[in-house]
């Protein structure tokens, strides 16, 4: 019986300590920690500051103060950043995110720059090939062994130019 009481007391103490620690943790939570950044920087603050909830200053924006507290609560519950993200997107829609989703129509935001770049790269390749072919194999080419020769020639021509200017 005694041991049961001890266990009971111990459990009580543990729970109390846990909740105490949790309160302390919430109070002293480092809003600038890397873990918090990973979660909070996903969400755009709508107070008009144009920042995300990681950057937005809780001392000047009430909106972010509450939002940050909610995020910490969820993190304490063991939710990871993707779960928290899904939770908010479910409520507020994609508008709350700082970057578009990588699905549906928003995927075009991510993909199009690279598609255009790829297509343009192919076009450049095609154009260079066309221009190289056009020259034909026997065209006269000043072929430099390396850049050093090229520089030497440039220096020489600039010196000749200099001399020419002196006397002409």
């Amino acid at each position, binding site marked *: 019986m005694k041991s049961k009481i001890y266990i009971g007391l111990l459990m009580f103490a543990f729970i109390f300590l846990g909740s105490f620690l949790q309160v302390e943790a919430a109070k*002293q939570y*480092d*809003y*600038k*920690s890397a873990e918090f*950044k990973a979660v909070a*920087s*996903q969400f*755009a603050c709508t107070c008009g*500051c*144009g*920042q*995300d909830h990681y*950057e937005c*200053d*809780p*001392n*000047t924006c009430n909106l972010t103060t509450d939002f940050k507290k909610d995020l910490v609560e969820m993190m304490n519950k063991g939710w990871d950043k993707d779960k928290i993200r899904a939770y908010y997107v479910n409520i507020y*829609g*994609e*508008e709350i*995110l*700082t*970057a*578009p989703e990588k699905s549906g*129509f*928003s995927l075009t*935001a*991510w993909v*199009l*720059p*690279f598609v*255009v*770049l790829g297509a*343009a*790269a192919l076009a*450049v390749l095609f154009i*260079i*090939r066309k*221009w*190289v072919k*056009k*020259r034909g194999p026997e*065209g006269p*080419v*000043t*072929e*430099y*062994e*390396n*850049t*050093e020769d*090229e*520089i*030497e020639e*440039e*220096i020489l021509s*600039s*010196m000749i130019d*200099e001399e020419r200017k002196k006397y002409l």
Partner: protein
Amino acid sequence: MFLFANATIYIGLALAVYSLLIITLGISTKNQRLINSGKGGMIALLVCSSLAMMSLFYLLATSSFQYEYVHDYTSSELPIIYKLTALWAGNAGSLLLWTFFLTLYMIMIAFSRKLKGNPMVPYVSAILLANAVFFFFILGFVAKPFLLLDNVPIEGKGLNPMLQNPGMIIHPVTLYLGYVGLAIPFAFAMAALILKNVDDFWIKMTRRWTIIAWLFLSLGNIFGGQWAYVELGWGGYWAWDPVENASFMPWLTATAFLHSVMIQERKNMLKIWNISLIIVSYALTLFGTFLVRSGVLTSVHAFANSNLGLYFLIFMGVAVIGALYVLMSRYNMLKRSAGEFNSFVSKESSFLVNNLLLVGAAFAVFWGTIFPLVSEAVRGTKVTVGLPFFNKVEAPILLSMMFVMAVCPMLAWQRSTVKNLKKNFMIPAILAVLGMVLMVVLGIQKAWAVIGYGVIILLLITHFLEFYRGVKARRKMTKESPLVALYRLMIRNRRRYGGYIVHLGIAFIAMGIIGSQNYDLETMKTVSLGQSIELKDYRINYDRLDQKREGINDIVYADVTVFRNGKKLGTYQPEKVFYGNWEQPSSEVAIISSLKEDLYIVLSAWEDDGKATFVVKVNPMMNWLWIGSFMIVIGALFAVWNGKYGNVTPRYTGARKEVS
């Protein structure tokens, strides 16, 4: 004063319209007298815009609050320097500044010694005058700088405290100088096309203008970033805000232009591409202004939302359609003279890849910036496209760009054989890989950082070799001492070596960006008096919290003593300023700067019992960013400096007309 100031705007508008019409008439009737009259009108236009500027400066300095602009952006206790610089704090004033720069540039072109007797001048003048008509129209009817209020207020609203910073004095000025500067090569390109003069005269003639415009655009962005870093208390310098993007896009396309013109100069190729690039760069400057002034996108850059943006959009549309029409009508001429490449592997090819990446990066920024509008139009959801998007999309493109930058100096013009390539590349590549391995061993293990720094090592080595080989080649022929050889080598080819200095500057900036983005540390802690905060090697002792009054502002400040590895660095005072005439307080951060890193301390909040909350940040390699920026300025100035060598005025060989 009211009448005088307004007269400068409306007479200016009348003069701009007159000059435009008379020059156009002069061109069509080939009458030099009419052209000269138009040129006289242009001088009068500069006088008008100068007087308008002086009037506004005077009204701001004397706190004439009966004027809406003065009332909205200043207050009587504001230091005189900020009273004056409030000229570009609002819509109307900043557009007046823009107009002033435009008229100034216009005169510099129309009366340029080098262009004396050149038939392009009337055309260039007419195109710039069309711009001036638009700006004077805006100043006269849309954003009026000299509007009177119904009653005379005792006090003004004051200047946004965020703008009361040296960075803000110069940031808008440099940006506008860059924006307006891009109108010059655009006007020359159009004039060349209209005159059916499709050689590279316009490029050679405007080369300096383009570099100067590019330099000012770079400076505008750098000063903006520097201001954000010291003033916003957020510890960052670039947020990919729509307005920042708006100035970054023309910078990217202008950079592409500066490189691709070399192919036209050397090989008489890429004519259509170069003209397209300058049209796009010019259009993007107007697009940027549309974004800033229209309020279609959420931005931290607080210009009042108005229909002003719409006017810019319409003007941009007209300019682009007009330019494309001229381009298309000369398409066959431009196409006919297309040249050829000698090899896949050559400097020419690498410039094409460089253009591909720069324009690709500009497109990615453009797409990300307008995507919220696209998304709203397509499915009714206005998504936010912020920092995470741009960082992820731009990082690989710009890193590839850095790689091309590293490789390019090693490639010869015309043709580089694989054998030579191997010979030139083997040592730099091995050293870069060794550097990367060393980084991993030393604990730098983030992929982006390792790859990024690897590419930068390659870039530094290839550029060093470029200087080294140049000096060696010169010494072989002249037997000069190494320093003399280096100096003479550089001043005889200012553009090339100036460009390399800019490359090195970009490498330094990239080092700063990679370091500060990947290895920054941050903490936010509430501490009691006497307690300390520890971050990395730093200990910040919180010693005192006090309040003082400066003018009408209340300042709460904390004394903190900073130690690194136990060694005292000094006492610093992060502040929070509460303004007498502004609702939002601002943070004055304490920055302890070194080459290795910045310690960034923000006083965030405090309680009655003396407890205070600090945000402390360690930003690695921030100074590298500023050093790199400085190198860009040096490099660009070196490239455009009016030296003894290679400073030949290009010969005009195009169409001859009777008027000039």
